[in-house]
């Protein structure tokens, strides 16, 4: 039980800190909204190429932008560990009788909760811009939950790197280096079917594709479980593995 308590305490601190930085909340959603407004309109002309049942490029793109937001939000998990290490706060936590694993797990959960808030705001903005969610409010909840799984995965990756890299500048650069290609080799903004075949292969292996596809099914088609569940199961499994690796690397970095 005390492990769960420790995880919650680590998480509580991150959430409190986040609430105190309104600029961070604002900036983290401003960029995706601009993407939606600009790119969403700019690319309207390709709507007919997206396949049947898709009425507007904005409908197609909104899930991609929600996922993009959580993708970038995930970077903070590792950054906050690097900062805690530099400021001595990590040592203070480690000197206390708390579970070692609670520190990375608490941080991953915190960044996932924070990104769920961001994803909700983006989705609301998209709806205001005229995006239609086929499955209604329940669908929105499902979309947010799937986005949260992806954020856990990404903060796991950034934590695992943070356990090895240890300076925030380098970590930031490495994470940017990772997130951008991840984004553009997925079907976030452009249908996989229209990509050259080598890019299609990459997109098939890209976990972002497997996050966006079920979200798109939920917002555009409806509760088509046969196409939602396998992808969600895949990314959930991968997320668990990455969280495990991140926790292990963290534990190794402090011993």
């Amino acid at each position, binding site marked *: 039980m005390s492990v769960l308590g420790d995880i919650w305490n680590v998480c509580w601190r991150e959430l409190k800190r986040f609430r105190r*930085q309104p600029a961070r909340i604002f900036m983290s959603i401003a960029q995706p909204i601009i993407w939606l407004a600009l790119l969403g309109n700019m690319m309207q002309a390709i709507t007919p190429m997206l396949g049947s049942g898709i009425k507007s490029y904005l409908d197609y793109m909104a899930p991609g932008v929600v996922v993009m937001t959580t993708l970038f939000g995930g970077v903070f998990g590792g950054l906050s560990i690097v900062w805690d290490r530099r400021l001595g706060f990590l*040592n203070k936590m480690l000197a206390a*009788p708390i579970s070692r694993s609670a520190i990375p797990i608490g941080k991953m959960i915190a960044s996932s909760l924070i990104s769920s808030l961001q994803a909700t705001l983006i989705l609301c903005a998209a709806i205001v811009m005229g995006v239609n969610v086929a499955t209604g409010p329940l669908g929105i909840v499902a979309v947010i939950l799937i986005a949260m799984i992806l954020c856990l995965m990404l903060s796991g990756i950034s934590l695992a790197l943070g356990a090895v890299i240890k300076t925030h500048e380098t970590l930031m650069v490495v994470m940017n280096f990772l997130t951008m290609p991840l984004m553009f080799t997925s079907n976030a903004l452009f249908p996989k079917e229209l990509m050259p075949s080598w890019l299609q292969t990459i997109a098939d292996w890209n976990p972002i594709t497997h996050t966006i596809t079920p979200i798109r099914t939920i917002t555009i088609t409806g509760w088509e479980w046969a196409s939602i569940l396998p992808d969600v199961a895949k990314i959930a499994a991968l997320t668990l593995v990455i969280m495990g690796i991140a926790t292990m690397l963290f534990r190794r970095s402090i011993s």
Partner: protein
Amino acid sequence: MSASIIKTETLTKIFSGNIKAVDNVSFEVEEEEIYGFLGPNGSGKTTTILMLITLLKPTSGRATVCGFDITKEQAKVRSCIGYVSQDTAVDENLTGRENLLLQGRFYHLPKEVLEKRIDEVLEMVDLTDRANSLVSTYSGGMRKRLDIAEGLIHRPRVLFVDEPTLGLDIQTRLKIWEYIQRLREEAHMTIFLTTHYMDEADKLCDRIGIIDYGQIKVVGEPNELKSQIGGDIITLRFTNETNSYANQALAEIKKLAAIENIVPTKESFSVVAKDGETTVPKIFEVAGKVGATIESISLKRPTLDDVFMAHTGRELREETGSKEDLMRERIRMRRVRM
């Protein structure tokens, strides 16, 4: 369980690159004692603390804190100690009260106890009226006080304090010293601290261990250590023209009854004498007889600086520079923090 609350036996830490940060250190700290490590930066003070609070594994040797082995019973050690690092690791984006709340929860204190404890420690460090302000609005001294309060929240039996007044102004330092002394008296706590300020070690500690290059050179009460120097310290300097008579003069001075020892330092001589005030005129007298003129002379009671000098052959304060020290420090920091 042994009588000493901290006990180390040949504790050693060697970092990669064969850097001996802590070298065969053995000492014991009694219950309710304020025990200090005095030494320059990079002498192994922080490394010793990090081993005792279970954050670093010793390369060899063993140690117990509160009777628990620091490598085999880490969880038990952590529950009975508090740690105040030299980084003043308080969270700027939380209020003082939230920082304490978080710290108390890390120690699994029940809610009702924690609420009471927070008020208590806030009172103790005079932060009650600022408890609900964000720490980012606190001064350096307030942050340090909050940091110390956090170390006390779970009433540890031993409090480890690394460089308690690093970078603080004089008034704040005096305050912090007062708090630390009050802790021992009111909470019956054992306090292990490190410092490179000799006045801090002198004022605050019941006993100090002088540490240099990872080794303990001597352990004792500050007064006892100072009296071991053997008397007052007279520093004198001859004028350039009469420098040739210096040796003759020194030989005469040495014959005086009160003189214990004469050590040449850069351009001057350091004379240890039992009774400084009455010895100074006698020195003038004998020096004048052989034709040497004294240009300047000073008299002081021995300080821990002199004790440090006597045991390590160098001054505590002059350590700002050597390349080796810097290297050791840098490597240590990289190991510890990164």
